[in-house]
C-alpha cells in the first residue's frame, strides 16, 4: 500500500515505476502530460491483456493464470486512472465555484 500512496502523491496517474517515455512536445510535469502518460500506460496494459486473451483462444499460451493476472491488472489500471481523473475534475469544479 505504501507504493500506491507514494505514486499517487508524487505523480498522479503514473501507474508504473518503470520510466515511461516522456510525451513528446509536452511538459512532463503538467497535468495533461501526466494524464497522457497514464492513459498510454493503461492502453499498453489493455493491449497486453488483449494479446493474452488471443493467445488463450488460439491455445498458444503456457499458463492460464497469466491471462487472468494481466486482465485484472489492466482493469485495475483503468479504474485507477478514471478515479484520478474524476478527482481532479471535481477539484477543478470546486475551485471554479469558489466565491472570491
Amino acid at each position: 500500500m505504501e507504493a500506491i500512496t507514494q505514486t499517487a502523491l508524487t505523480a498522479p496517474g503514473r501507474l508504473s515505476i518503470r520510466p515511461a517515455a516522456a510525451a513528446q512536445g509536452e511538459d512532463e510535469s503538467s497535468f495533461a502530460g501526466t494524464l497522457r502518460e497514464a492513459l498510454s500506460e493503461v492502453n499498453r496494459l489493455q493491449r497486453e491483456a488483449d494479446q493474452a486473451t488471443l493467445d488463450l483462444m488460439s491455445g498458444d499460451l503456457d499458463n492460464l493464470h497469466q491471462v487472468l493476472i494481466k486482465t485484472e491488472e489492466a482493469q485495475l489500471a483503468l479504474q485507477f486512472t478514471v478515479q484520478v481523473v474524476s478527482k481532479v475534475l471535481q477539484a477543478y469544479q470546486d475551485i471554479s465555484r469558489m466565491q472570491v
Partner: protein
Amino acid sequence: MNLFTSFQISGSALTAEKLRLDVIAGNIANMSTTRTAAGGPYRRRTVAFAEDLAASRGRNDSVSFHGRGVRVDRIYADHRPPQLVFDPDHPDAGEDGYVRYPNIELAKEMTDMITALRSYEANTTAVNTAKSLYLKALEIGR
C-alpha cells in the same frame, strides 16, 4: 508448449497403459492358443515404452522442458521356445506327439496387469490435479 500440455502428457500415459492392459489381456486370453494365422502357437507379446520429447520449441516456450509424456515404442513378440506338453490326441500335436503351447506364465501376466493398473490410476490422479489447478487459476480476480 500450450495451455493443456499437462493433460496431453497424462493422456499419452493413459493411452499407453491402456494399450499395455489390452496386450496383457490378449496374452491371458491366448494362454492355450496352439493355432495362429502365422502358424505355430501364440507368442507372448510385450509393450516397450519410450519417453516422448517435443522436437521443436513453440513460440511461447519460455522454459526448456520438452517432456511430452510417453509413447509406445513397439509391441514385440516373445521368442522363447514354446512349452511342450505330451498329448498325442490333440489335433495340433506334432509328429512326436507333443503339443506346443505358448510360454505364458499367468502369475507374471497378473503382476504386470497390477503394475499397469497402478500406473493408470497415478496418471488419472495427475489429470485431476491439473484440472484443479486450472480451475483455481480461474479464481484470480474474483
